[in-house]
């Protein structure tokens, strides 16, 4: 007993020394262009978590990737070579993550994903330096596919033609048992969906599942609501999150969407997070903010256990995920992707503001489909 006590005191002492050395974190995220709302929520939540921790030794290097893969790659190189960052994080979009992550982890730099979990990085190409704190891309869509089985037999599915879009529809189809009324891939950044909506009308579908993040989803929902089609829509939480609901307006009311987080999720860490974010920024947080907050707190927890310079110890400390997640219990799977619940939410109006509330749990302790291919 005494020895255990002694070791824990010793490790506590070590932990405080580890705390004292400066740590540099590179944050590459989207702060300009159409996708900026997502990156700004990511950055704000991350900075707020760091500020609240009171840890003065952490330095953030924040840069804007403008949602362009080539810029993200340049920024990553600059941060690794000249800023000498210890950790990288921040990327929102899967195509940017695909451009940056493999090269970063190959240089033995740890990358933590606060969003985006392309399937290519979750399976055979998993890496000890790559931690996904958010989700594997398929997860939200798998949950919606599972939930759709309850009421629907003939869904029309729609996503943009890029890695996350393909992951989305693959994920939906993995659990959905009914037939498909149509499967359409649109252009990334497309703003007019008249041609697709006409096909939905003609297809005789009993439901529509779509994944269109950011401005794309806003356009689609507004146009869909005006088209006179009564077929119910559903989608992953991204299309109905706090960053876009205001712009969609009442057209979103009642829509079911899937997510691993919601602001009404009942746990202490989440209540604290939602309050802190609202007080600091005078708006409600989005999923991106929540995931980013978790990423920051995971890093802080790991830093209190191990030095970031001791890669093996630090990786082990990250993998232990010994922090209070706003999503409740947080555990990493063998491929460093989370094992977590996925909920179904419904868009509601609270005090005149559109937001979400949880109405069902689609999966408990859900693992992604690629973990088995990962040799870690």
């Amino acid at each position, binding site marked *: 007993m005494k020895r255990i006590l002694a070791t824990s005191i010793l490790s506590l002492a070590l932990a405080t020394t580890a705390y004292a050395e400066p740590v540099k974190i590179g944050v590459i995220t989207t*702060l*300009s*262009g*159409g996708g*900026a*709302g997502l990156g*700004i929520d990511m950055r704000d939540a991350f900075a707020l978590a760091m500020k609240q921790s009171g840890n003065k030794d952490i330095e953030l290097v924040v840069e804007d990737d403008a949602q362009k893969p080539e810029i993200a790659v340049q920024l990553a190189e600059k941060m690794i070579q000249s800023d000498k960052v210890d950790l990288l994080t921040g990327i929102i979009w899967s195509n940017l993550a695909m451009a940056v992550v493999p090269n970063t982890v190959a240089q033995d730099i740890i990358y933590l994903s606060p969003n985006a979990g392309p399937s290519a990085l979750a399976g055979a190409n998993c890496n000890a330096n790559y931690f996904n704190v958010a989700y594997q891309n398929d997860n939200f869509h798998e949950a919606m596919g599972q939930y759709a089985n309850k009421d629907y037999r003939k869904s029309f599915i729609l996503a943009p*033609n890029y890695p996350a879009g*393909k992951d989305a*529809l693959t994920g939906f*189809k*993995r659990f959905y048992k*009914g*037939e*498909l*009324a*149509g*499967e*359409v*891939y*649109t*252009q990334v*950044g497309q*703003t*007019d969906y*008249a*041609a*697709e909506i*006409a*096909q939905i*009308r*003609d*297809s005789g579908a009993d439901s529509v599942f779509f994944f269109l993040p950011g*401005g794309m989803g*806003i*356009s689609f929902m*507004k*146009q869909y609501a*005006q*088209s*006179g089609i009564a077929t119910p829509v559903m989608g992953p939480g991204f299309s109905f999150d706090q*960053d*876009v609901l*205001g*712009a969609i*307006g009442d057209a979103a009311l009642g829509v079911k969407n899937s997510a691993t987080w919601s602001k009404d999720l009942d746990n202490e860490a989440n209540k604290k997070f939602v309050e802190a974010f609202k007080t600091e920024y005078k708006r409600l947080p989005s999923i991106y903010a929540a995931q980013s907050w978790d990423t920051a707190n995971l890093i802080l927890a790991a830093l209190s256990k191990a030095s970031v310079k001791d890669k093996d110890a630090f990786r082990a400390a990250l993998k232990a995920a010994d922090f209070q997640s706003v999503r409740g219990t947080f555990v990493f799977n063998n491929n460093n992707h989370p094992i977590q619940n996925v909920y179904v939410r419904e868009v509601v109006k609270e005090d005149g503001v559109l937001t979400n509330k949880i109405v069902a749990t689609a999966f408990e302790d859900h693992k992604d489909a690629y973990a088995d291919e990962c040799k870690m």
Partner: protein
Amino acid sequence: MAACPCAEYGTTALSTALLIEQLLNGLQLGVMLFLMAAGLTLIFGVMGLINLAHGSLYMIGAFACAVTASATGSFWLGLIASLIAAAAAGAIVEVVVIRRLYDRDHLDQVLATFALILIFSEGSRWFFGSFPLYLDIPAALQGAVPLPGGGRYQLYRLAIIGVGIAVALGLYLLISRTRLGMRIRAGESDREMIAALGIDIQSLYTIVFALGAALAGLAGALVGALQSVQVGMGEPVLILAFVVIVIGGIGSIKGALTGAILVGLIDTMGRFLLPKTLALILPASQAGMIGGALASMLIYIVMALILAFRPRGLFAA
């Protein structure tokens, strides 16, 4: 994956209702592109200027409409505000920046107007933030109307088609029947000569620029109610508008109209028919992916073909 229960949907016959709806969609996209391309081509035709910032004027129109509509509750006031704001922004930009560029070569113009894009984008982000603004369709134009063949079509899109046709007619009358139009035509054919004849070329340029800007602002406001009003919304449309004027012949309003309708129809029909056709020979999900990718290239392929046979566009000015 197990055997797909979904093999059939790609092969269903086309219904008339769907075809009519898609044709209208193509027409609506074309009309919207025309509003953008008309200003662009007019400015190029009269002043020989390549204005990359035309997309920013479109964005200004949308923002002005969204802000006014949310302040006053009236979309129509917003529409007027969008015209005024975009025309004013256009006039100011012309006087302050563009005027210095007429004698420079196109590269300088591209650089300067590209800088304007960045200034307008970051300026709007500074004022309005990065989150999209809300702008809804006015109550009178909500909903859908029945189409022949049993389909339904969104009323607001029909209204956009109407506005586009009215603008095309108005521009035609303006250019062929009025004194201002005569000067614009004169400016297009010989700039030095009309200056020598004592016409105040500077104010003519400002008026033409403001007119082009107002059309872009109108397009932005009309489309803003359908899509999301956000920073950077103008650039994708700008690229399409350039395709339109290259196809139509740079400087020609008639070319802009033809090119715009052509691009609108080809883009819409391609997006809808290519995946359907490919589904006859490929599994549905692959047909969707490949068809979608091909459809997004289609207008550029058409542009390349037209340029190969008619290097100066369909209606060279």
